[in-house]
């Protein structure tokens, strides 16, 4: 690759690198159990847990995660205070 100095690149461009392929396990969020506490959003090292904006039957805005980038670390599942997230084998 030819390098152009100074090495300048555009912001937020790692978004082209879909790290979801690294995953061997994937988090499954039970939207009914989710209380919308924001813990998974805070702890996800990829920053790919987010509020969906939709409410479950209990009136709570539930969360989801972006499988394009999720590396399947399991941190969100482990830290969810109501165990709304479980990890499942991800066969590709």
């Amino acid at each position, binding site marked *: 690759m030819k390098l152009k100095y100074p090495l300048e690149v555009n*912001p937020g461009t790692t978004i082209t690198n879909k790290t979801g392929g690294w995953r061997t396990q994937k988090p499954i969020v039970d939207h009914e159990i989710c209380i919308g506490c924001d813990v998974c959003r805070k702890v996800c090292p990829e920053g790919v847990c987010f509020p969906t904006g939709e409410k479950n039957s209990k009136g709570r805005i539930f969360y989801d995660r972006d499988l394009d980038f999720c590396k399947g670390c399991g941190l969100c599942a482990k830290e969810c205070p109501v165990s709304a997230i479980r990890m499942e084998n991800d066969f590709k």
Partner: protein
Amino acid sequence: MQKYKNPNQHLIAPGHTACPGCGQLMSARLVLDACGSKTIIANATGCLEVTTTKYPTSSWKVPWVHSLFENPSAVASGILAALKQKGLDKEITVLAQGGDGSTFDIGFGLISGMWERKENILYVCYNTEVYSNTGYQASGATPLDANTTTTPPDKKSMGNAFIRKNMGEIAIAHGCVYVAQTTCGYPADIINKVKKALTFTGPKYLEILTTCIPGWGVENEMAVQMGKLAHKTGIYPVFEYYDDEYHVMKIPGEPLKVDEYLKLHKRFKHLFGNERGKEAIKQIQNIADKNIEKYNLK
């Protein structure tokens, strides 16, 4: 296809190449989101830099500069000088950041200079307690008896022979206006401390103990758990220091014994199941007890 769309609101974009479960990347995202988009970053060499800026891409959504391992503090001083010239230094936050190797050892002199000049810069150290990016060599932040690639235990050695430097106290001795320590076990505390730090004008130091998955030899999902245990055993005091006073995060209930923390790491595995290890654990317990007393953590 995914049903719900990721709004991608964080100031560090995904697609970076940190290990799954990395405590450092989790903490860095919280720090930058708390600083806000009007921030300019000077970054040291290390995992944080390498994993987020694979050429020709960058995860950062704010101006971000990398020059050398040792000089983010000096680069930040230059950025601040330029902002002052433009009359923008009041509205823009200057953030310098690096790992423990760059903070405790290789960039140490330049950080001391930045603090001596009393510059209005927030320095954040992500303390993984090893040189993570080059394969887990011991740094000045590595705890006693840890097994690293440069301190392997054998017949004569129990691992790292030295007690880690106390960088928080070194910052306080420099007269920093705000000094704090926390861990990746407390995401809300990281956000609060960054916001609190930014209410002060002058040199500020925040150190975050961040789990390095392969460096510590822990499972992918353990970053938060490990951060909490480091605090609850007294191994890593969580505190703020400003206006000549310490404000500590108390340990809830009785402090846990250090074994509870040590037994979860591969880097401390050699301390278990033998007499020499037992003695070593006693010594580590002693360090934790002293922390609890010194910082009044109970």
